[in-house]
C-alpha cells in the first residue's frame, strides 16, 4: 500500500498537526476540519468526494496510521454474554491492541458497565449529570431506553455535526452501504444537521414469517397456507385431528402472545392485522400519504374480530394476553404448537430444540398468508442498530473514520482470499490446525469469543444487505465461499437459508415504523395512556368482554385524548424528512 511508503512523511506531518491542534483547539467550535484534504494526501483519503470546498492547507489530518498514536476515549456497555479469554477485558484486548498496532489509534476507556437491566443507560445518565467527562466517541444502541438516551446526548450539545465529516472521510464502501436507505439518518438530524452516524445492521433481522410443523402438514396431507382461510383449515386440523395424537386441549395450533404489545419479534400477532392492511403499534404511511397510527386503522377492527374467533375456537392460547415472547416459544419447543410466527433465524434458536423433545418434529418456514383482499403485511426492520456520536472537543474526529473505513474495507464483506477471509484474530474467532485448515467455535483451543463486540463501534462494520445476499446464495445451493457465507452456514440453524428465501419472496409486505424522530411533546405526556386504552380495548374485544363496536369508541377516545395532536406532530416531523 502507498501508506507504507509515505509513512515517515506522514508521521512528521502528524507531529506538526498535533502541535497545531493543541494550540488551536481551545475556544474553537464545531468547525469540521482544522486542516483538510489536499492534493498531497488525496491518495490516502479513501473518499472520492474529498474534493469538496475546504480551506487550503498542506495535509489532511486523515491518516491510515497515526504516529504518534492518537487516543480516542469511549465508554462501554458490555453485553452480559460477552466472553473474554487470556485475561483480557473490554478495556484491553486483542482488538484494542490491533487498533494501536495497525492504525495508531489508542482506545481509552473512561468506564464500562455490564449492560443488563438498563445499567448502561443509567450509568450514562448519571455520568451526564455528575460532570464526568463525556467520551470522545460513543455508540448508543437502539430500542428500549437507548433511543431516548441517544436523543438526550444529542441535546446536550456536547456532540458535533458529523455529516460533513462523513462526506469528507468515509470510504466509498461505507457510503454505499449507508445509501441503501438514506432514512437511517433521520433520527439524528437536528435543524438539518446530522449529529450522529447511524450504525448499520443487517436488514430483515426482525421481519418475521410463519414457522409450521412440516411433519404435521405431511401426515395430514395438507399444503402450506396461502391465505388466511387455508391457515384456519390447517389450525383446525392440527387441533382436532392432531397427527401426533395429542388431545385437542393439549395443542396450541398457533402460538402467539400479546402481554404488553401486539407488535413484537416472536409469537407476534401483527400479521393478522397485516392481512387487513395495517400494522398496529407503529406509524404507517396512510392512504393520504401522511403517517397514521396503525392501531386506529379500520383494518384493526377486522383483525380483532378474527383473533376473537380464533380464541373462541381454541386456535390461539387461551391465555395469550398473559404470554410474552419467550412464553410463546415454550409450546413450540415442547412440540405441542403447530405454528409460530418469528424471525428467519428461529431454526437456530429456539426451534432446534423441539426435535430433542419430539424426535419426529420438523419446522419449515412459510410466507405470511394473505387476507380476504389479497393483502399481507408484517412489521419491518430498520437498518440501524444504533448511533455513533463524536464529541465536539475531540481533536481527531477523522481517526474514527480511519478505524471504520478499515473495518468496512476488510471486515464487512471481505473478498475470498483477503486478509480476514478466514477469520479476524487467530486464537479468538478462529484458529488453524497443523495443516493450515481453519478451526471454528469449539475447535479453537480455549473456545471462541465474539470479537465483533470488541470493536469501537458495535459489531464493527455491517453492510445491511450483505447477510441476506449470503443466505440467498446458500439457499440457491451455492457452495459457501466468502467469509459471510461460511459464517452463516457454520453458525445458524439448518433452515435459515430457506427461511431467508421465503422472507425475501415477500419483499413488499414489510411495514417499517416510519416515525424515528425524538419523542414529540404529546407523545411524552400522553402516549402511555393512549397505549393503555388501546391494549385494554383490544383485549376486551378478543376476550369477548366487549363486542367489536368498542373499537369505534376507542378510536374516538384515542383521537380526543391526544392522539390527533400526536399525529399532527408526527406528520410535522415527517415533512421535514421528505425534503
Amino acid at each position, binding site marked *: 500500500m502507498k501508506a507504507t511508503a509515505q509513512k515517515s512523511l506522514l508521521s512528521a506531518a502528524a507531529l506538526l498537526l498535533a502541535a497545531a491542534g493543541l494550540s488551536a483547539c481551545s475556544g474553537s467550535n464545531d468547525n469540521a476540519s482544522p486542516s483538510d484534504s489536499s492534493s498531497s494526501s488525496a491518495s490516502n483519503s479513501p473518499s472520492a468526494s474529498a474534493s469538496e470546498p475546504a480551506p487550503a492547507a498542506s495535509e489532511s489530518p486523515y491518516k491510515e496510521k497515526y504516529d504518534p498514536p492518537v487516543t480516542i476515549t469511549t465508554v462501554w456497555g458490555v453485553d452480559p454474554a460477552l466472553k473474554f479469554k487470556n485475561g483480557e477485558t473490554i478495556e484491553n484486548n486483542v482488538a484494542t491492541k490491533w487498533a494501536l498496532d495497525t492504525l495508531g489509534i489508542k482506545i481509552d476507556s473512561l468506564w464500562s458497565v455490564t449492560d443488563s437491566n438498563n445499567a448502561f443507560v443509567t450509568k450514562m445518565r448519571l455520568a451526564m449529570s455528575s460532570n464526568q467527562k463525556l467520551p470522545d466517541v460513543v455508540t448508543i444502541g437502539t430500542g428500549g*431506553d437507548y433511543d431516548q438516551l441517544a436523543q438526550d446526548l444529542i441535546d*446536550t450539545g456536547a456532540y458535533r455535526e458529523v455529516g460533513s465529516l462523513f462526506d469528507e472521510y468515509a470510504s466509498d464502501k461505507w457510503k454505499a452501504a449507508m445509501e441503501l436507505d438514506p432514512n437511517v439518518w433521520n433520527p439524528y438530524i437536528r435543524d438539518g444537521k446530522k449529529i450522529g452516524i447511524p450504525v448499520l445492521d443487517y436488514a430483515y433481522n426482525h421481519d418475521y414469517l410463519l414457522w409450521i410443523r412440516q411433519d404435521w402438514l405431511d401426515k395430514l396431507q395438507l399444503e402450506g397456507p396461502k391465505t388466511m382461510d387455508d391457515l384456519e383449515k390447517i389450525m383446525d386440523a392440527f387441533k382436532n385431528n392432531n397427527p401426533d395424537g395429542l388431545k385437542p386441549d393439549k395443542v396450541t395450533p398457533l402460538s402467539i402472545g400479546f402481554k404488553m404489545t401486539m407488535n413484537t419479534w416472536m409469537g407476534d400477532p401483527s400479521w393478522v392485522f397485516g392481512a387487513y392492511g395495517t400494522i398496529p403499534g407503529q406509524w404507517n404511511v396512510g392512504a393520504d400519504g401522511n403517517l397514521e397510527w396503525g392501531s386506529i386503522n379500520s383494518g384493526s377492527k377486522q383483525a380483532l374480530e378474527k383473533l376473537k374467533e380464533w380464541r373462541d375456537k381454541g386456535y390461539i392460547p387461551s391465555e395469550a394476553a398473559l404470554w410474552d415472547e419467550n*412464553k410463546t416459544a415454550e409450546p413450540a419447543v415442547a412440540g405441542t404448537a403447530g405454528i409460530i410466527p418469528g424471525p428467519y433465524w428461529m431454526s437456530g434458536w429456539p426451534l432446534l430444540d423441539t426435535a430433542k423433545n419430539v424426535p419426529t418434529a420438523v419446522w419449515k418456514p412459510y410466507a405470511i398468508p394473505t387476507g380476504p383482499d389479497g393483502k399481507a403485511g408484517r412489521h419491518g426492520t430498520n437498518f440501524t442498530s444504533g448511533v455513533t456520536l463524536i464529541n465536539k472537543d475531540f481533536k481527531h474526529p477523522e481517526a474514527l473514520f480511519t478505524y471504520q473505513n478499515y473495518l468496512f474495507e476488510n471486515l464487512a464483506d471481505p473478498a475470498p482470499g483477503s486478509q480476514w477471509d478466514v477469520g479476524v484474530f487467530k486464537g479468538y474467532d478462529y484458529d488453524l490446525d497443523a495443516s493450515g485448515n481453519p478451526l471454528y467455535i469449539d475447535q479453537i483451543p480455549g473456545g471462541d469469543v465474539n470479537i465483533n463486540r470488541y470493536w469501537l463501534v458495535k459489531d464493527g462494520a455491517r453492510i445491511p444487505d450483505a447477510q441476506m445476499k449470503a443466505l440467498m446464495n446458500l439457499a440457491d445451493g451455492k457452495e459457501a465461499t466468502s467469509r459471510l457465507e461460511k459464517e452463516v452456514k457454520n453458525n445458524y440453524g439448518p433452515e435459515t437459508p430457506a427461511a431467508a428465501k421465503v422472507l425475501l419472496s415477500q419483499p413488499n409486505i414489510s411495514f417499517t415504523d416510519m416515525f424515528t424522530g425524538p419523542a414529540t411533546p404529546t407523545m411524552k405526556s400522553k402516549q402511555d395512556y393512549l397505549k393503555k386504552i388501546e391494549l*385494554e380495548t383490544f383485549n376486551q374485544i378478543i376476550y369477548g368482554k366487549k363486542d367489536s363496536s368498542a373499537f369505534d369508541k376507542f378510536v374516538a377516545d384515542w383521537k380526543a385524548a391526544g392522539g390527533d395532536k400526536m399525529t399532527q406532530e408526527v406528520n410535522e416531523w415527517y415533512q421535514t424528512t421528505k425534503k
Partner: protein
Amino acid sequence: MRYLRRTWPFHLMLLPALALLIVFNYIPIGGIVMAFQDYKPWLHISGSPWIGLDNFRLMFEREDSMQVIWNTLLIASFKIVFNLLTPFAFAILLNEIRQKYLSRSIQTLVYLPHFLSWVILGGILVEFLSSDGGFVNRVLHWMFGIKPIFFLGDGNWFRFTVVVSDVWKEFGYNTIVFLAALAGINPSLYEAAEVDGASRWAQTRFITIPSLIPMAIVVGTLALGKILDAGFDQIFNLYNSMVMSKGDIIETFVYRTAIVDGQFGFATAVDTLKSLVSMILIVISYRLAYKLANYRVF
C-alpha cells in the same frame, strides 16, 4: 453542665451513625429540588429550568391518575395489613409445635420464597395459576368443583393474587422478628399461668399476644412508610394489558413514563409526594400509639 456530663457518652455513641446519615442521606436529600425543575442531566441541578409545580400537575392531569393512585392505595393497604397479621399468627402457631426439628424445618422452609426474585416467581406463577390447566385451578376444581379462575387476567382477581402472592413470598421472612420477640418472653410467666390452671388459649391471649403487640406496633407503623409502595418488581412482572385498569400502580406508571424517557424531575416529584404522604401517616400513627397504648414506637 451536669446534664451534659451525664449524657456525653450518648452523643458520642450516636456520632458515627449521625455522620454517615448526613453524608449519605441528608446531603442527597437536597436533590428533592429536582421535583420543581425540568431537570436535564447535562445542565445539572443548578442550571435546569424551574417549572414550579408542573411535574406534580402532570401526575394529576392524566386521565387515569386517580385510578392508578386508588389501585396503589388499595393493593398497598391490603399488603400492609396481611403482611402484619400473617407473620404474627404464624409465629404464634409455630410456637405451639413442640418437636424442635419440625418447627425449625418449617421455619427454614417458609423462609425460602423470599430468596426468589419476582422475575423467576412471575414465570412460575403464570404457570401455577393458569386458567388452562394450572395447578391451583385444578385443585380448586377437584376439591370444590369451581370453574377455572382467570387469576392474572381478571382485574379483581389480579389484585387478590398480587396481595396473596406477596404475603406468601414474605411471611416467612417477616415472621423472624416475631419469633425473636417470642424468644424474649419470660418463661416464668407461663409457669405461673400453668399453676393457676389457665388454658393454652388463655395463656396465648393474656401472655403471648400482649408481648408481641409492641413489636407489631413498630412493624406496622414503619410499614406505613410504604403506603404508596405497592411493589414494583412484583406488579411489573405480573401485570399485562388485560388488567391495566385495576393493576397499574404509581411506580409502574412512573417507570413507563418517566424513567424510560429520562424525566428525572417527574420521577422525583412523584417520590416526594409519596414521602410526604407516608410521613404524615407515620406521624399520626406514632401519636396514636403513644396516646392509646402509651407506647413510644421510636
